[in-house]
């Protein structure tokens, strides 16, 4: 159980029994080493692949996450032990060390914390995938029973899953705002009506609710609990002096997160699209017309919500949807020169071409542009404020069509993409391979 949910009672017991003695985290842990060597799927050719102590294990978890996300040559065999239950005890302890380190040093709103929460979600997802179907069903149900102490889950608690398209509202079976997950509850609400259709209600339950939705929900809830835990650690620091060992681990984690973040990615077809100067000829129709300025209403939306994310990502992180890495503008453009000299001027030009020019009557929109780049609500791009807001990702074609229908004049390429940014990366790739 704590292999999947370290925050369960079982997980807490493991940590209690261990005594939580941080001084030992650099001591060689022969039990851990033995287990890792005994896993046949594990690559052992290089000594560096093997975690020797708790500190190693903490760092390896983070490394795994980064590599899996952004390294096209990611080798699962290097990290096979992370997916074997034998390490449960050590893994649980490593989880707590990791969360505490991030909690004391960076707090719940940091980039590091977001990465750790996401990491935990990923790890659970992959661990579940490695289980046998029957086991998977059983464990999922057990964990769910354990997590849902309050009697019901409301769909509104899953809003961010809906927003990020991980779950569609249409897939959930809803009744009075509650997400129906429980077999008995399903029967109670729908059993009779289903019988009238001459179908077995039990089967309908398996088919409609089954495991997938449950798994998504437990992953999501554990991620949320992880974040809450980091927060609670952070709050305690205000009262108790943090252990220097934790601070050291936190620095190491942060270092791994930024150093290992490599910018791979590309478009389907195998090419990689790296950060490079913008080629306006390859822009999709909607962006081209937005650059000419907006003559009627909706100027702010087009400039702030549409052009700003598009131009900044196209210039700095065109493969964002592919690599799925949480980057900041300054990860790619450390002194913000590109942003100030190339991206902002293009946005400002387009704003000027609007009629009336956008900033003439709404100068505050400049601040909104900075906010959409991740620099908070301030009137300049100051690295110290970075992270106060998030770097807004480009909106999808679907959203363009809803919000600014006048801009969307699809051409051939549009048929095969769902986001104007993918249009651009695809064109770059085609352009390259034509040469």
């Amino acid at each position, binding site marked *: 159980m704590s292999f999947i949910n370290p925050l369960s009672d079982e997980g807490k017991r493991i940590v209690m029994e261990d005594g939580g003695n941080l001084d030992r985290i650099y001591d060689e842990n022969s039990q851990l080493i033995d287990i890792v060597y005994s896993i046949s799927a594990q690559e052992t050719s290089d000594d560096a692949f093997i975690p020797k102590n708790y500190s190693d294990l903490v760092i390896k978890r983070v490394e795994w996450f980064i590599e899996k996300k952004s390294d096209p040559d990611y080798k699962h065999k290097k990290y096979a032990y992370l997916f074997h239950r034998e390490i449960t005890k050590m893994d649980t302890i490593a989880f707590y060390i990791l969360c505490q380190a991030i909690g004391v040093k960076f707090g719940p709103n940091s980039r590091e914390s977001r990465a750790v929460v996401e990491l935990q979600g990923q790890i659970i997802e992959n661990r579940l995938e490695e289980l046998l*179907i029957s086991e998977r*069903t059983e464990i999922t149900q057990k964990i769910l029973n354990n997590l849902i102490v309050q009697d019901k889950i*409301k*769909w*509104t608690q899953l*809003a961010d899953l*809906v*927003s*990020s398209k991980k779950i*569609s*509202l*249409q*897939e*959930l*079976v*809803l*009744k*009075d*705002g*509650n997400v129906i997950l429980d077999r008995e509850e399903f029967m109670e*609400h*729908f059993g009779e*009506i*289903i019988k*009238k*259709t001459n*179908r077995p209600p039990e*089967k*309908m339950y*398996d*088919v*409609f609710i*089954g495991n997938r939705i449950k798994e998504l929900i437990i992953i999501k809830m554990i991620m949320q609990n992880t974040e809450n835990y980091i927060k609670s650690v952070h709050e305690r620091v205000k009262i108790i002096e943090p252990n220097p060992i934790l601070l050291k681990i936190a620095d190491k984690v942060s270092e791994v997160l930024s150093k290992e973040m490599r910018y791979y990615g590309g478009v389907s077809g195998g090419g990689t699209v790296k950060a490079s100067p913008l080629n306006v000829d390859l822009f999709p129709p909607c962006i081209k017309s937005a650059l000419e300025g907006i003559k009627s209403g909706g100027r702010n939306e087009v400039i702030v919500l549409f052009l700003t994310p598009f131009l900044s990502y196209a210039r700095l992180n065109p493969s964002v949807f592919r690599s799925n890495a949480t980057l900041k503008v300054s990860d790619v453009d450390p002194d913000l020169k590109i942003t100030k000299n190339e991206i902002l001027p293009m946005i400002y030009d387009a704003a000027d071409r609007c009629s009336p020019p956008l900033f003439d009557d709404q100068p*505050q929109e400049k601040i909104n542009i900075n906010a959409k780049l991740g620099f908070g609500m301030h009137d300049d791009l100051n690295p110290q404020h970075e992270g106060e807001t998030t770097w807004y990702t480009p909106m999808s074609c679907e*959203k363009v069509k*809803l*919000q600014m229908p006048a801009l969307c004049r699809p051409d051939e390429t549009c048929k095969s993409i769902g986001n104007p940014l993918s249009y651009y990366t695809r064109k770059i790739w085609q352009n390259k391979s034509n040469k």
Partner: protein
Amino acid sequence: MFNPATLEERRIYYREEWDIKQVPDFIVNSVENREFGFDHFGRGPNDRYKVFNTPEYLKRFMKSKTPFAAYCSVAFYEKPRKRDGWIKSELVFDVDAKDIPIRTCNCENVCEICLREAKEIISSIIDTLKGDLGLNNIHLVYSGRGYHIRVLDEDVMEMDSDVRSHILKYVVGADLPKDKYDDSDGIYNLEHFSIPFGYPKVFTERVKYAINHLTQDSKLDDVNAKLLKDVLTNRNLLDRDEWGLFKTKIGPLRYKKVVKAITSLNMGLVDAKVSIDLKRILRLPSSLHSKVSMRCMEVKNIDAFDPFKEAVPKFVWERK
């Protein structure tokens, strides 16, 4: 009726008929957090960013300015004067009778028939908001030419426009339900009409409504005159919920075409831009819709509500 109100009539309305008490509580209680906007000359709301710290100020403004149209934001702000410090927004569905894609009337503007149809659409959306999504703090407003549903449940007011667009598609039936489902034993084909719960049920109801309101002149993507005619001839089967038979009569491939066309048509039942816009302004309930001389007002009992009785200002009856 439906004639524009003269300047004199507007004055009479605001000075003699209008009362601040007609502004619903859900607005009065948050008056200081909302942005107000006005249209003084009938050219669109260009007097915006107005703020009233108390209902009394709003009252004085209305009585003295007697605006052509009055609006207030669905958003709550910390600093409404700058539209800054966004706190949350009502979730809104706007059904304008004039823009319903399936109207059985052929009127130019609006008439009793399309207003009634707007009301039917609105009621089914409200049912879904309550029954499926469990929302309770729902207010219905007659807008003068259609209806606004305004949802003030705390949980949804903080949601972003992505979630709102999903909700919208759910309640109007604008997504094709899956028809392939799998569990550990295999893959199943299940038609939306054979699933009596969840989204497929909502979708089935919306398709039925649409088919029942099609006319010979309806325009559906990819549906030709012959197919439309066949649908109309066989639609009585749906009254008895004989979907399988209906599908066989139409032919399975052609059935798919019809359903797909209705899916995109349903998207047009509600003005999507209004629902996903977190900073929209909407007509202020109690104010006058001067273009059609009707009152925009909160509706307490949807079944009993008749705009031609309740939303017609006195001055209209007195017109010669």
